[in-house]
């Protein structure tokens, strides 16, 4: 028997499949591509693939930095055409406002629909304009606002899924587990069934409908860009800020290497000569306390500047309040990974490329960790930026060939071991996918990994879904 709907498959000989092979850091080799239009058809396909043990990989916008939406073999199912916003309502029992959508809707569009109705959906990975909602659930996405609002997991109330056998299942959240701001690695074992699915990188089932809680839109915010002439001083500033009573919405780093790229964006302000690092933060304010909030920050920053001996730099703390300015700052921030990914792509052919870290450490260990990595990185082509308030910077290393790549890979493994030693995690938000799978053994004990394998077998006994993500293809470890 033929696989149902296979007449609509785009085969590997067809050039249209090209776009669906690639993630920014990984190229796959799928045999066929299928655009999901009706989930009943997808269910039939899954049932048949499961019986034949044919691998199926789900893909959203393929912005994964770990290759989790690129397939090494088998069928790729793209969700981009399942992009409807379905409903926004208030739950009569809990009083909570909920939003429901199909997985292929772009996160930016989802957030906008909700904002138009006067509500707010917090998760905001840097790629929010490109990433699809389903993908952000499958990776438990975080972003700059995670500092105040926590990760995607916190907001998911119900998922409709198709299992590996093509059976539809609705999973509701009954109670909220203790949620860390950042992921460790692999499956989330400390929650309920819905938690297994969130962050499972397409290896346990296909998410076909997402219901999230949304918050009332209460606050406006301003952005600040704070320059430093010493990188480690900027980290010290962050640690002190996190330990203070100040509560910014986001606390981000634009560090060495990244600041040079940020500065090339036409719409960001000019910093003083000698700027090595910039801290970018967002602060919410109510109708009457804009002035108090800005005053509080000015005093806090000026105190730190005085202590470090450059009080005149306070004139270069930039303040963005209009939507345009805030968007421009975000665009400048997004410009960093976008530029690096583009440059790194040029080194793929010669075996090089970008290696990015995704480890995080508890805030009290941030300074020693950063000092250690910085000292060891000084002779390497690197840049560092991102979610410093959560102890979660992304160090990016550019490599030109396979031997450089191997050397950096070993260095990053060393960093991961240290991060775990400090009580942190190896994969804060990008997941493990196919390229960071070896981090799993750094993070977890054999017993925990065995539990994860059992979980995978429970949901996907024939090991057909997202093959190669999180765990090696079945059998390779046995």
């Amino acid at each position: 028997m033929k696989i149902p709907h296979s007449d609509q498959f785009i085969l590997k000989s067809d050039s249209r499949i090209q776009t669906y092979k690639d993630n920014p850091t990984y190229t796959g080799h799928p045999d066929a591509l299928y655009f999901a239009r009706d989930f009943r058809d997808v269910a039939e396909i899954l049932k048949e693939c499961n019986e034949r043990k044919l691998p199926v990989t789900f893909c959203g916008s393929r912005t994964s930095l770990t290759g989790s939406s690129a397939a090494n073999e088998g069928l790729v199912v793209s969700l981009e055409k399942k992009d409807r916003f379905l409903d926004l309502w208030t739950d009569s029992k809990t009083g909570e406002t909920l939003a429901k959508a199909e997985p292929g809707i772009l996160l930016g569009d989802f957030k906008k629909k909700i904002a138009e109705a006067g509500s707010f959906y917090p998760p905001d990975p840097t790629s929010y304009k490109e990433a699809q909602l389903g993908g952000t659930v499958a990776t438990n996405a975080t972003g700059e606002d995670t500092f105040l609002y926590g990760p995607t997991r916190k907001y998911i109330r119900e998922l409709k899924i198709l299992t590996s056998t093509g059976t539809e299942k609705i999973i509701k959240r009954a109670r909220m587990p203790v949620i860390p701001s950042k992921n460790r690695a692999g499956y989330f074992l400390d929650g309920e069934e819905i938690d297994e699915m969130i962050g499972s990188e397409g290896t346990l089932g296909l998410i076909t409908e997402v219901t999230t809680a949304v918050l009332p839109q209460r606050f406006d915010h301003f952005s600040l860009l704070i320059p430093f002439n010493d990188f480690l001083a900027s980290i010290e500033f962050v640690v002190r800020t996190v330990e203070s009573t100040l509560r910014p919405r986001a606390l981000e780093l634009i560090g060495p290497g990244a600041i040079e790229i940020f500065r090339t964006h036409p719409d960001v302000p000019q910093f003083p000569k000698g700027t090595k690092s910039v801290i970018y933060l967002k602060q919410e304010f109510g109708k009457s306390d804009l002035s108090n909030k800005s005053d509080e920050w000015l005093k806090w920053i000026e105190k730190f500047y005085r202590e470090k001996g450059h009080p005149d730099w306070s004139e270069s703390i930039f303040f963005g309040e209009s939507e345009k300015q805030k968007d421009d700052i975000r665009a400048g921030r997004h410009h960093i990974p976008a530029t690096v990914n583009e440059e790194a792509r040029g080194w793929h052919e010669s075996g090089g490329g970008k290696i990015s870290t995704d480890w995080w450490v508890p805030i009290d260990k941030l300074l020693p960790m950063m000092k250690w990595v910085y000292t060891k990185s000084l002779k390497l082509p690197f840049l560092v930026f991102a979610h410093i308030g959560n102890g979660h910077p992304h160090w990016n290393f550019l490599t030109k060939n396979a031997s450089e790549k191997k050397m950096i890979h070993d260095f990053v493994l060393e960093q991961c071991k240290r991060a775990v030693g400090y009580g942190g995690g190896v994969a804060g938000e990008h997941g493990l996918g196919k390229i960071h799978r070896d981090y799993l053994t750094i993070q977890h004990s054999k017993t925990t990994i065995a539990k994860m394998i059992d979980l995978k077998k429970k949901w996907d006994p024939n090991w057909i879904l997202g093959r190669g993500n999180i765990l090696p293809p079945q059998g390779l470890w046995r």
Partner: protein
Amino acid sequence: MKIAVLIKQVPDTESKIRVKSDGSGIEETDVKYIVNPYCEYAIEEAIRTKEKIKAGEPEAPVATVVISLGPDRALEALRTALAMGIDKAIHIDSEGKIFDGFQTAKILAGVLKAGAFDLIFCGKQAIDDDNSQVAQMTAEFLDFPQVMIIQKFDLTPDSKGALVTRQVGGGAREIYEAVFPLILGCEKGLNTPRYASLPGIMKAKTKPVEKLKASAFLGDTGPLTQFIHYQLPPERAAGKKLDGEAPQQAHELARLLREEAKVI
């Protein structure tokens, strides 16, 4: 030298505009207001001009003043300009009235005349009503020369005039040599408006803001234009899906284009 900047506070382009049920205006609740983006170029150019003169001659007396006509909320726009670096603000209270371009120009001209300004920067137009007439009419009331939609501004070495460039159709540029007093309408591309600094925001709170009343400058000048009614553009009608095989669809499409849309 005294430099004035005329600014308007307008709804943020991100705001969703709702028309009042009686069509008399827009609902202002939930609308976020910003400085008209073209006026931001004007503010930036005024500050840069002052900085340039001061760089050559630190003791030169140069003052920048930002002026806006509007309700109380217009004060926020003035504070933004002060935070960017303007020295002083004048808020002309519109006293609950809405003026047309002609009356606005009349009021502004009155205030400018009293201030004896040498150089006046404005946005080329406001993005709310897109009238593009206030700066021109103000120049006429003052009998000042004007250059509108400018993309380049260079002071002459004696700081008594400027070379001003504006883009015209077909990619050509007009370059004007002008002597102050002068009114300029600023266009995108003239400069990149700066971000206010955090200390700038705090300092803006203590900079002087002079309060004037519009009625004192309007006299008995009535409006030349009036807004009768506001309405949103009609919503786009739903599309039509044609059934059948391609040849039938083509026939049906041709029929609809001819009979319904009347375009062929």
